[in-house]
């Protein structure tokens, strides 16, 4: 009995030993920043010095329409880009899973390729491609699809479209692979039975495939949502610091700009980042609700 107890204590010590390095790093690089932000958020910066500002940063935030516009852009990108991307990815996944027999593997690899580019690399590529006198406009002009070059990067409306196009290029294949994994886990006997019952392919898709894919679809949307919430690289590089005229400014980019470009105001930037934390918390709550909260 005693021996077993001491053995348990030994294993428990091993457990602590294994966990300690990670926990030490966690305390220094995660917990401490979180706690110190509680202090930062009450300060107002000016150069080297900072002074107590109370809830002043939050009051200022309430009046900062550029920030709310930036946050609005995040939601706009979510609302438009995610459905387009998920729809495309779903179509591709279904076709690759059932629609064709040849070149499945090759096409899967090809569609996934954009994922190997870093966000910076593809933002740079798209910035060059989408310039007013760039390749994309020239191709469209030559094909007589447009009469005038489109201001993909300098028109407030088209710049938003550019971000959406770029995001879709980068992430569709990634989501498609998600869905393929989901589709492959569906038992093929269900389809065989449906075939026997005379259900059309279309009917099978609506009544069998989609309902079974709902968890994967939800999961992919949740991932994309939190990714879009943190959008930074694309508006900073592809559309030049959230331009034109803040049309593609994202919340994360605006926070960065407040801390490192405009005023070096770490207190105000921290206050703004709290908004992102709250929104992410709400999303996480919804996610747990939707996905049943069980261990995935």
């Amino acid at each position, binding site marked *: 009995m005693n021996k077993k107890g001491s053995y348990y204590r030994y294993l428990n010590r091993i457990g602590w030993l294994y966990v300690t390095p990670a926990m030490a790093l966690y305390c220094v690089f995660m917990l401490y920043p979180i706690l110190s932000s509680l202090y930062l958020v009450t300060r107002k910066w*000016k*150069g*080297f010095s900072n002074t107590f500002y109370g809830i002043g940063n939050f009051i*200022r935030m309430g*009046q*900062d*329409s*550029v*920030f709310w516009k930036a946050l609005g852009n995040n939601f706009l990108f979510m609302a438009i880009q995610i459905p387009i991307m998920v729809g495309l990815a779903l179509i591709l996944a279904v076709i690759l899973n059932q629609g064709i027999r040849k070149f499945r593997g090759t096409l899967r690899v090809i569609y996934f390729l954009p994922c190997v580019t870093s966000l910076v690399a593809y933002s740079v590529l798209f910035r060059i491609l989408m*310039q*007013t*006198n760039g390749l994309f406009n020239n191709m469209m002009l030559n094909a007589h699809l447009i009469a005038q070059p489109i*201001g993909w*990067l*300098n*028109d*407030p409306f088209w710049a938003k479209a550019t971000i959406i196009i770029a995001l879709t290029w980068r992430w569709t294949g990634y989501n498609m692979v998600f869905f393929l994994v989901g589709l492959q886990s569906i038992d093929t006997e269900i389809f065989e039975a449906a075939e026997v019952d005379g259900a059309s392919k279309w009917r099978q898709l609506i009544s069998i495939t989609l309902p079974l894919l709902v968890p994967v679809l939800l999961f992919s949307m949740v991932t994309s949502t939190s990714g879009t919430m943190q959008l930074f690289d694309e508006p900073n590089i592809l*559309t*030049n*610091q959230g*331009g*034109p*005229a*803040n049309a593609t400014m994202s919340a994360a980019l605006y926070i960065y700009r*407040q801390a*490192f*470009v*405009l*005023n*070096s*105001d*770490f207190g*105000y930037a921290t206050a703004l980042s709290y908004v992102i934390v709250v929104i992410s918390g709400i999303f996480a709550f919804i996610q747990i609700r939707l996905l049943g909260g069980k261990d995935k």
Partner: protein
Amino acid sequence: MKRIVMGLMVALAIVVFVPGTMVAAGAKTVTVWYWDVNFNGYSMKQAAAVYNKTHPDVTIDIVEIPQGIDNKIEAGLQAGGSGLPDIALFQDFIIEKFVQNYPGIFVDLKAAGVDYSKFAQYKVGPMTDKGKIYGIPFDTGSTGFWLRTDFLKQAGLNPDNYQKNLTWKQITDLGVTVKAKTGKPLIAYDSTNIDFVRIMVQSAGAQFFKKDGSLDLRTPAMKQALTTLKDLNDKGLVYVTEGWNNWISAFNNGDTAGFLQALWIIGTLKSKPDNAGKWMVIPTPLLSGVPGAQNASNNGGSSWYVFSGSKNKDIAVDFLKSTWASTAPDALEFYNTILKGAGAMGTYLPSRNGSNYTAKDEFFYKNQAVYADFAKWMEKVPVMMYTPNYVAMTTAVQNANLLMLKGELKTVDDVIAHAEQEYKQTTGQ
């Protein structure tokens, strides 16, 4: 698995055994940050060469920081000086922010014996604080309107008739003719900076801020500048680009017949040798109807500063003093070299007698003596007030301008109101 382990081993081997190609900073190395290879970087290299003749043991390490140099410096200052160089180049418009918000970061060069009476006085204003003067003035941003003479000729116009003081009205008429005949818009306009409007506003001697540092966009000069820009745009004469390098490629590749900019753009023009003989520059057009307006303005201009946290600050100060602020023949000849080599017109008055100041330049239409022209135009440049919030102001104004060009803001008053609002919100004032 073997592949993974192999891959990791190879990667680790590279990491461990490839020696860092980093230059080892010796005891007598002075590091300098700048942002444009063809311009201020080129000039600093010439200065370093002059200094090395007498001080061969000092290495001047000249490092390009192309993106957000002032942001990097500010981050370094916030981090207690980590990673900062010995000398850095600052735009004149940003320096007040550093001098006021970060007291004591620069070496007082007046105390170190620099004779500021020999520099153009408008440069000294922004770098002065409480009797101390911190920078070595570098270049002037005397401006002009640049025109492609070949497009003018194609449109049936004689370029020689336009080499004189014009008003914006006359320039607009010229643009309409060129556009009708050649299809080329008159002006390449970069939507990501404020240069175009700033040049116009400053040509009338106006400011963006009041004396107390508060924003002042409701000036006659600002309103007239925006009205002019809107009119040019309504007539289809403005070619909007989305960034500095895109703007450069627009006029260097002949997408437009001209643009408005300071003389330091010469190096960039010359980077496209096939355009030799095509460009000419005329005086900045007159913002007529605004009191104090003249056919001259200034844009940009920067100065060198020594950080007081630098380990080699004595060498750094000596380097700047004996090249950029010296009447020694070598130093004056260096000013002469960078004028021709990069279009860098120094603001050190004794250097004004160099041969290149009057020389003809074969790159320009009819070998125009561009430097003599710019030197003439720059004589009346007023002292600008910048304040620590200058960047927030330029961002707000350039954003509002773009919305006007894209038709989202209809009137000049709307544009100003929009800019004022964004300025207020991003600075929290």
